[in-house]
C-alpha cells in the first residue's frame, strides 16, 4: 500500500504551479513589448525633431539669402545714385532728391545708422509667406571718404558689406535673434 504522503507529493509536481510562477509570463511579455514600443516612439520622435530643425534651418538660410541680396541691391543703388546718404541716418534720406532710388524689391529698410567709416543697416523681408514673413537681418556697410584733388574729403565710397545675421522682429540692430 502506497504511502499517503508520497501520492500527494507526486500530484503537486505534475499539476500545480507554485504561487510565484503562476501567470508571470504574460505580464513579462507585456512589459517587454511596452518597452520596445516606447523605445521606438522615442527614436521616431528624435528623428522627427531633427527633420523639423533641419527644415527651420533651411528656411532661415533662405531668409538670409534674400536679405543679403536685398542689402547688396540697396547698397549698390546708394553708391550709384546718392553716395552722400551713406553718411546720413535713414531718417534724413526722405529729404534727399534721390530717395526714390533707395530701396530693394524684396525687403524693406528698417533703419540705417552711420558711424565712423561704416553704417549699420537693418532690413526686413516683405512679400513672403510665414514663417519667413518679417524676418530681419543686420548688415554693416563699410565705406571711406574719397579724397578730392584739393585734399578735402569728398563723397563716401563703399568698400564692403558685412553680414551680421538675423534679428528678432522689433529688436534693435545690435540684438541677436534666438537661433
Amino acid at each position: 500500500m502506497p504511502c499517503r504522503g508520497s501520492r500527494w507529493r507526486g500530484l503537486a509536481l505534475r499539476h500545480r504551479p507554485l504561487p510565484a510562477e503562476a501567470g508571470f509570463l504574460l505580464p513579462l511579455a507585456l512589459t517587454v513589448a511596452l518597452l520596445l514600443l516606447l523605445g521606438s516612439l522615442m527614436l521616431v520622435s528624435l528623428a522627427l525633431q531633427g527633420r523639423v530643425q533641419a527644415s527651420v534651418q533651411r528656411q532661415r538660410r533662405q531668409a538670409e539669402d534674400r536679405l543679403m541680396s536685398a542689402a547688396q541691391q540697396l547698397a549698390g543703388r546708394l553708391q550709384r545714385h546718392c553716395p552722400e546718404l551713406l553718411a546720413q541716418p535713414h531718417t534724413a534720406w526722405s529729404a534727399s532728391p534721390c530717395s526714390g532710388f533707395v530701396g530693394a524689391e524684396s525687403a524693406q529698410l528698417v533703419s540705417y545708422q552711420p558711424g565712423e567709416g561704416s553704417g549699420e543697416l537693418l532690413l526686413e523681408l516683405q512679400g513672403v509667406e510665414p514663417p519667413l514673413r518679417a524676418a530681419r537681418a543686420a548688415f554693416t556697410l563699410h565705406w571711406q571718404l574719397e579724397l578730392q584733388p584739393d585734399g578735402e574729403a569728398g563723397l563716401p565710397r563703399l568698400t564692403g558689406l558685412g553680414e551680421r545675421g538675423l534679428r528678432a522682429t522689433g529688436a534693435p540692430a545690435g540684438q541677436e535673434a534666438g537661433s
Partner: protein
Amino acid sequence: MNLVELLVASSLVLGSTTGSLGIWARTAQATHDTALRLRQELQAEEQLLAVQARLQSLAAERRAAAEPSEPPPGCPGLADLQPVVPAPDADPAATLDLQLDATGEILTARAAAAAGYQRERMFDLVVYGLCAGAS
C-alpha cells in the same frame, strides 16, 4: 504555466520585436538621409561664403595695389571671381555657378545640390569697390 499563456506571450514579444526593428530601420534610413541633406546644405553654404570672401579679398588686393595717379582698373571678370577652394572634393555635394549680368557689375552665385536644393545670392561688385558703378 499553461500553453495558451506561453503562446500569447511569445507572439506578443515576437510581434513587438519585429515592429520595433522595422521602425528602427526606417528611422535609421531617415536619419541618414537627413545627414546627407545637411552635408549638401553645408557645402552650398560654404561655397556662397567663399564667393563673398573672394570678393572681399579681391577688393583688398586692389586697394593695396592702387596707385593714386592711376585710373582704377575695370570690373573683374568671372575668372577673377572664382573662389579658391582649399582642396578638390572628389564627390562634391553641391556645385557652384557664377554669372555676371550684362553690365558686368552684378554677380549671381547659385549653389545647387541634389534633390533640387538650391541657394542663390546676388552680389553687387560696386559695393566692394570693384567697379566704378557707372551704370
